[in-house]
């Protein structure tokens, strides 16, 4: 990854010298062409093409935003309902992620999902304890966390 970015900068500088113009716009154009070159030759590198990782980061960011909007709607519905018929509770959620920063991002995402809030993490980083506003429809929340969030985070960290 670091090697590919370095190579990309190198190609951009070569482009600047070929054009003999030293403006940021030329640098950006050169960077773009270097990106194309590296993408074309991606099978000759040992590591994955780093553009995929950038796409994964952007997708994770979009998921973050979507969850923020959805959870706001859900909380609005609960708060503005005239009768308070919620059943809160704490459930355990086993996770497969290992690194500290991955678990931080997953905990932030869960906090932004509709009706869930991370309370504690077990000392060996394997179980998250999540407080849910309504424990009845929790199964689909667990499925959503498992399928979309963990997969998106793994896509970035791989």
């Amino acid at each position, binding site marked *: 990854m670091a090697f590919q970015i370095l190579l990309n900068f190198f190609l951009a500088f070569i482009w600047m010298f070929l054009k003999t113009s030293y403006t940021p716009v030329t640098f950006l154009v050169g960077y773009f062409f270097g990106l194309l070159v590296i993408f074309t030759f991606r099978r000759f590198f040992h590591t994955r093409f780093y553009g995929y990782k950038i796409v994964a980061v952007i997708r994770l960011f979009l998921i973050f935003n979507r969850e923020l909007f959805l959870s706001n709607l859900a*909380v609005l519905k609960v708060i*503005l309902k005239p009768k308070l018929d919620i059943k809160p509770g704490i459930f355990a959620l086993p996770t497969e992620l290992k690194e500290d920063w991955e678990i931080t991002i997953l905990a932030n995402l869960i906090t932004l999902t509709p009706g869930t809030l991370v309370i*504690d993490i077990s000392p060996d980083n394997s179980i998250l304890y999540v407080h849910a506003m309504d424990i009845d429809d929790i199964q689909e929340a667990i499925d959503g966390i498992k399928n979309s969030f963990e997969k998106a985070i793994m896509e970035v960290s791989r």
Partner: protein
Amino acid sequence: MTEILKFFIGLTVLTGALLSLVTAFGLIRLPDVYTRNHAASKSATLGVMLVLLGTLLYAYQDTGSFHSRLLLGIAFIFMTSPVAGHLISRAAYNSGVKLWGNSVRDDLAKHRKK
């Protein structure tokens, strides 16, 4: 052009203010710390993000330059608000605040006992 932009600014600012009101309403109405934290860590974040977005648009429209400090503020609040909610609820649990009477399940207490 400026009228349309002004309309959008007013809309985002008003929506953000209404979300802040909903947060306060939830904090008054909901029964215990954990459920209140749901309201505080979600609606307040989106509300202040919308208000700051409106301010960003207005500053762009007014002075013609892009104020990246506001963007920094949005990113900062976006990142830290869930962390703050998690920290408060963990502190509440560890300092022994009881769950609401109608709560149905508590896996954490079960795991702690083991």
